């Protein structure tokens, strides 16, 4: 069981590394065609999947209790929303425009991260002492 969970954590880690690299490449390509206009939200977009994806997945490689699928979905969706929201803000700032709809992505992303974190913690508290396989929500 541990082997399988660690494999899952490793897979998630690799995916988040891929997303982080994609964000860097996306910024570099976009920067080439943005006529010298920059936005920190585009430049540092990669920091979101790195801080909220790569680092937590790295930590999960070292711990026994792995997040369940629902928790993972909530967390991954939150990271995706925040990353996309940052990228959109970068695109809009470089273009010289804005969108109120984008803010909803940020709020929803932050909310999903919080719910995911709470779910992981709550599942840990509810876990039976005999349930050593680390399964959570």
């Amino acid at each position, binding site marked *: *069981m541990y*082997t*399988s969970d660690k494999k899952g954590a490793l897979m998630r880690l690799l995916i988040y590394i891929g997303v982080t690299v994609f964000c860097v490449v996306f910024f570099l390509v976009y920067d080439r*065609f943005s*006529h*010298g*206009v*920059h936005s920190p939200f585009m430049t540092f977009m990669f920091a979101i999947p790195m801080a909220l994806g790569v680092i937590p997945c790295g930590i999960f490689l070292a711990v026994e209790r792995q997040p369940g*699928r*629902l928790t*993972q*979905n909530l967390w*991954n*969706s939150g990271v*995706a*929303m925040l990353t*996309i929201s940052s990228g*959109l803000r970068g*695109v*809009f700032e470089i*273009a*010289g*425009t*804005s*969108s*109120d*709809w*984008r803010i*909803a*992505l940020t709020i929803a992303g932050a909310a999903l991260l919080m719910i995911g974190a709470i779910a992981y913690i709550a599942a840990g508290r509810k876990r039976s002492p005999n349930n050593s396989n680390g399964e959570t929500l």
Partner: protein
Amino acid sequence: MKRGKKSINIGGIISAAVITIYTVFVLLDAFVIPRDIVRVEDIDVSRPESHSSLPPETSFFSEPETKEESETLPESQESSEEPFTEPHEPVYTDTYYSDENITINIDTVREHDTDIYIADIKLSAPSYLRAGLANGAFGRNVKAITSEIAKECGAVLAINGDFYGFRDRGYVMRNGYLYRDSMYSRDSEDLVVYADGSFEIVKETDILADELAEKGAEQIFSFGPGLVVNGEITVNDGEEVEQAMNSNPRTAIGEIEPLHYVFVVSDGRTDKSDGLSLAELAEVMKGLGCVNAYNLDGGGSSTMWFMGRIVNNPTSHGSSSHERSVSDIVYIG
């Protein structure tokens, strides 16, 4: 270890689909979908105090100009406004236009490794300086190319405006009608053109759009910044943000004296022309004698249109010459 088939992550798939669809919607809403549309033909712009003429002594047209290499304009291009001085047939060349109310001279200069197109404009009345909206309507993402809007408006000379439709905020008044009164940002500087043709550059934080309307504003452009205010250059490379320091195609409008204006458009982003920074553009405007000058939308939007042809080299698609669709124009006609 678990055995059997790996289950499909339905929740993950649904989540990814929702995020993708929403992202596409946000992008379409920002860049493509027209909305908040107000058609010009549905607006009552009757303002008796507007379009008031200045006293005769301010006119530049006491002695009508003529040119040997002139052509007669088609009737459809003649101004419908009441003539301010004695009528004479419009005459024009590729760089010159004159009728009883309008005189335009277009000059091309080269500074900062950039071709700069300068239209010197003298009017008999402020009502000949007007603004045109794409497709005859105000709204987000309502767009058309400058030359198309200019033709619809019956313009003699036109430049792109402030591309108000690319943003949801910022004062917008066109031809005496206030379309939008929401503030863009704390630092926003607007160009106000009053009914007597005079310019003023104001900060949106200092005055409400309604108050400007009460003061007799005829046009309010929300882009900026102001380049020259009361004869003094107000931008420099040290203070400006990165976007302003970069060399780009630029569009600016300036007032030299009552009813004497300049439209300035620079090329950029091409092998032949680097473009201008805002500080360089401000120097150009100051050098032309502008008392007040204002930066309009630039980059790929920068376009000058005169008597049916594009004067500059717009670069909306990389470095190729191509007009970008914009929300609005400023025109003479």
